[in-house]
């Protein structure tokens, strides 16, 4: 598993402080991050692949400073967004997966092969040439996962990946996240999703309010929101 290290990380947008002096070292296989809306958890995970650069402090992935070497870090860390519609950037299912593999020195044949394998793995092979926007919400999130995993990242960061899905599709994506060999960091409001994770971190008002085994962290969170 990768080692993700937050050192004295703070973030403010204008005069609004979003994160305050966060220190964390993430090494576990499956890590859940929970917290109220606006608590700063989305900003926190965006720092892992350089989508947000901290106002002060340092984030490193396997010793690489994300702010300086975002390109190398992004090859190790894949990101899943809440709304798959905004994550799909190419017209057809297959083109969207292949987009991830550009600029990696692969031959067109290799790209086609790996794309086909990823679509097969996520049950999208029959839709390869279909327009991506015609997929169902659950299929779109599967496509987003396929497009990230085709690059074989070491770590997957997912920001509320099940929030916009119906119960059945949410469960399906949740099960997938449980079976991935990759390190998985999930931000979510669906608490049952992280109940059997290795570690759960509670973010409250820009600070770490609880951090540890799921049972203990979830109990703290439930007390907080009472």
């Amino acid at each position: 598993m990768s080692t993700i290290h937050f050192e004295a990380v703070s973030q403010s947008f204008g005069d609004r402080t979003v994160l305050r002096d966060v220190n964390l070292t993430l090494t576990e296989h499956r890590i859940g991050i929970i917290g109220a809306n606006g608590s700063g958890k989305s900003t926190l995970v965006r720092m892992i692949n350089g989508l947000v650069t901290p106002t002060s402090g340092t984030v490193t992935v396997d010793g690489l400073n994300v702010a300086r070497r975002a390109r190398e870090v992004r090859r190790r860390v894949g990101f899943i967004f809440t709304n798959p519609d905004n994550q799909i950037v190419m017209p057809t299912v297959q083109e969207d997966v292949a987009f991830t593999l550009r600029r990696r020195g692969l031959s067109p044949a290799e790209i086609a092969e790996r794309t086909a394998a990823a679509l097969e793995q996520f049950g999208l092979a029959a839709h390869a040439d279909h327009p991506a926007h015609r997929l169902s919400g659950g299929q779109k999130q599967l496509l987003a996962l396929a497009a990230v995993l085709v690059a074989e990242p070491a770590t997957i960061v997912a920001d509320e990946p099940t929030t916009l899905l119906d119960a059945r599709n949410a469960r399906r994506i949740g099960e997938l996240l449980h079976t991935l060999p990759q390190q998985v960091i999930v931000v979510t409001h669906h608490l049952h999703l992280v109940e059997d994770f290795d570690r759960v971190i509670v973010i409250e008002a820009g600070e770490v309010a609880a951090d540890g085994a799921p049972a203990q962290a979830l109990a703290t969170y439930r007390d907080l929101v009472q």
Partner: protein
Amino acid sequence: MIGLYSPGTSFVHRAPTLLKLVLLSLCIVVIGLSPDLRVVGGAAAGVVLLFVVARVPLRAATAQIAPILLILVVALPIQGFLSGWLVAALMAGRLLVAVALAALFTMTTTVTAVLLAFQTLLRPFRRFIDADRVGLLVALTIRCIPLVADIVREVMEARTARGTRGSLMSIAVPVVVRSLYAADALGEALVARGLDD
């Protein structure tokens, strides 16, 4: 996205895209310079023949050419009155032939093939234009059309749900603002997915 392409296997479909482009340009220049109605008439017959060979559906062909007929209804009498009926007929014939030929090219060539042909044409200018990036932007925009269409539909539905019969403004402002937010999210995804890496 299939666009205006009408699938087929005729030699018009199979001819190399760049060759078709060159021939099209040549024809338009020759017809444009010819002062002879017979040349234009012959060209028109040739174009009809090509349409038949290519088996382009009549309706699709009409949709592309009909607007020109409409324009000619207005322009032809003015033209005939101002500079004589021979000149008017020449102008009308040239325009029809040129528009029909261009439509034939578009209807027998896939969007991907046209894109590749233009990327080839751009290659000598690679110091100024990155042809791959142009291709990427084209694909990104094709992806964005249903995204924006969804935004327009949702804004219209929200307006109906609230029961307000608002003006054009009450649609346009939320559509533009929400499109800009979608662009933010899309930009973030492009970065995360390694657009510039």
